């Protein structure tokens, strides 16, 4: 439709101590300090939930901010991970809450006589944890293969991922006898690994989540610095050129979808542990779109930014959720904020902070052109 605008590179690709890494270190420190500030166990549990959302947003930032793949179905791998964990924990509940022969209660209510084959392996917790990462990852990789091998790009990727999310959501609600349907899987046992009980309201769970988040943030950062991460960013900025260099663009995109889904699945499993149930709302459209908001507000091109964006937005939302009017107004504010961020601050809070830093220490900063330019330079995306 018009000529491509000259592209500004997002940030200097080399050098290890980027502001991004400093941001991650600050975030990790803040996470571990939180239990000393929040004394109430209930608050700790709430805060753990926000961290899980942070992890989910960070996973989206990998595929969206770095790979340029706007996955509107990010809640799909999250929900699948959550269900994997819930299935394993459901099979561990004390017999009172289950039917004859350890059959989950909702199956008894739906006249299911025998445990379905795909439930049986979930007696093993090891299997469940592996499945919670591999199943979402494989599904999203398959979806990525379907899309990217057919050169589906831009807005159509967004629509396809969203539609896929709705399909799985509908199926889970429809297959009530195997999935608990609309109610989800409730009355779960507590996760116990090696004698350590992960109660939703104790600090062990919190430290588990904080540790997983820290490891994920650091690994994500390292990934973004590898050759893989660099080519991914090149694909985001100029897909055509990377292709002409002989790289298999689709393979890179499929891989990042799979990695992002694996992290999202992990977040889903943690979410089940904190919430003590799994429900179809964990993979519905509103949640999926919320992840996009968190990411955009925090800074889609920055892993700690996206993480912090999610914690911030869900934190405020949680604080206001006592009143319906407050919550409605907050949703309105979020909508306005989101539109403004998309229009004027495409790199989110993270971009704002790095711009400010560049102003404060212009001399010491070696990367003065830190403004993250996420604008697509691909006019061919306009259908």
């Amino acid at each position: 439709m018009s000529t491509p605008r000259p592209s500004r590179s997002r940030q200097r690709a080399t050098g290890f101590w980027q502001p991004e890494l400093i941001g991650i270190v600050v975030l990790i420190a803040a996470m571990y300090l939180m239990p000393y500030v929040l004394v109430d166990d209930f608050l700790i549990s709430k805060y753990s939930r926000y961290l899980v959302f942070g992890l989910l947003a960070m996973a989206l930032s990998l595929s969206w901010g770095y790979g340029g793949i706007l996955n509107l179905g990010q809640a799909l791998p999250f929900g699948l991970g959550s269900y994997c964990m819930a299935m394993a924990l459901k099979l561990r509940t004390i017999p009172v809450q289950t039917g004859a022969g350890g059959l989950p209660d909702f199956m008894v209510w739906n006249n299911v006589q025998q445990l379905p084959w795909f439930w049986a392996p979930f007696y093993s917790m090891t299997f469940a944890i592996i499945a919670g990462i591999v199943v979402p990852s494989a599904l999203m990789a398959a979806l990525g293969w379907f899309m990217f091998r057919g050169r589906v790009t831009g807005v159509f990727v967004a629509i396809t991922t969203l539609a896929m999310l709705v399909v799985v959501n509908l199926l889970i609600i429809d297959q009530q006898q195997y999935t608990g349907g609309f109610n989800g899987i409730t009355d779960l046992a507590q996760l116990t690994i090696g004698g350590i009980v992960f109660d939703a309201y104790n600090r062990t769970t919190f430290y588990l989540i904080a540790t997983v988040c820290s490891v994920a943030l650091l690994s994500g950062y390292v990934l973004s610095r590898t050759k893989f991460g660099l080519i991914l960013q090149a694909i985001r900025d100029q897909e055509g050129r990377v292709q002409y260099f002989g790289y298999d663009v689709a393979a890179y995109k499929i891989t990042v979808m799979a990695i992002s889904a694996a992290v999202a699945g992990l977040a889903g499993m943690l979410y089940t542990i904190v919430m003590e149930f799994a429900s179809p709302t964990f993979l519905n459209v509103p949640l999926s779109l919320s992840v996009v908001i968190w990411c955009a507000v925090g800074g889609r091109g920055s892993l700690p930014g996206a993480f912090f964006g999610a914690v911030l937005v869900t934190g405020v939302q949680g604080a206001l959720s006592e009143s319906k009017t407050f919550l409605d107004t907050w949703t309105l504010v979020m909508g306005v904020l989101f539109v403004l961020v998309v229009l004027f601050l495409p790199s989110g809070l993270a971009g704002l902070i790095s711009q400010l830093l560049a102003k404060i220490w212009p001399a010491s900063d070696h990367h003065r052109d830190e403004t993250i330019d996420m604008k697509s330079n691909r006019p061919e995306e306009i259908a």
Partner: protein
Amino acid sequence: MQIVFEQVLTGLSIGSILLLAALGLSIIYGTIGVINLAHGEFIMLGAYAAWALKTYVGVSLLPGLVLIFLGVGLFGWLVERILLRRLYQQPLDTILATWGIGVVLQQVIRLTAGGDLRYVELPPSMAGSVSILGVETSAYRIFIFVVAALLFLISWFIIYRTTFGLKLRAVVQDRGVASSFGINADRVYSATFAYGTGLAGLAGAIISPLKSVSPEMGTGYVVDAFMVVVLGGVQSLFGTVISAFSLGEVTGVIAFLQNDTIAKAIVLILIISVIRFRPQGLFVAKVRA
């Protein structure tokens, strides 16, 4: 035979509603290339406008239609001028922005008009039913069919038989060349967007007596409308019509055979497959750039 004819009529009725909902989206998407995720909310605005006009001003539905078309169209014009204009270079961001606008509109309506269901009454002159070849049909559904057909013809006429349409098609084909021939592309885009949103408002107002009016009502319509556009093919008004009525018939048959959820899932998978294997749409023979 009777049952078949009834099915055909039901399908036509669903199809005309689909066409109403999709026409504005199709025009905007086909010309500006913006997937307007707020389209459903513009439909919702139209429905609320019909309700508010009746409740507070006392203007009934039919005379209000012109007002609603102009009002929602003006609103769309403002949205294009103030917001979307800045994002044409970034198609992904237009999705996000229009979706954000949708959220804002929903919340504004929820906070002002309340979250309860509202009802708009049928125009008394069309409350009855008409018998066509022995099948009783509500007069209002026939009215909808006629309006949808009329709006389609008007849109076709504007795009293919007026100077404005000529300019519009020129801008769509090559914005740069069109601009150098003295066509104000910005103005053409705003006008087109306003027209498309006006049509959405009209659709909402006309549909409102049949369905309950709620802040969330738009979500379903945007999905349906998008489905119609994807199946019909971008930049193809005729494709939109054919796909609206075929989907109408298919939906009618599925509703007849039942199992709603699976049907919905199948339709979505169908859309995904169309996007993947036939991105130009089902009903387009050739596509010009």
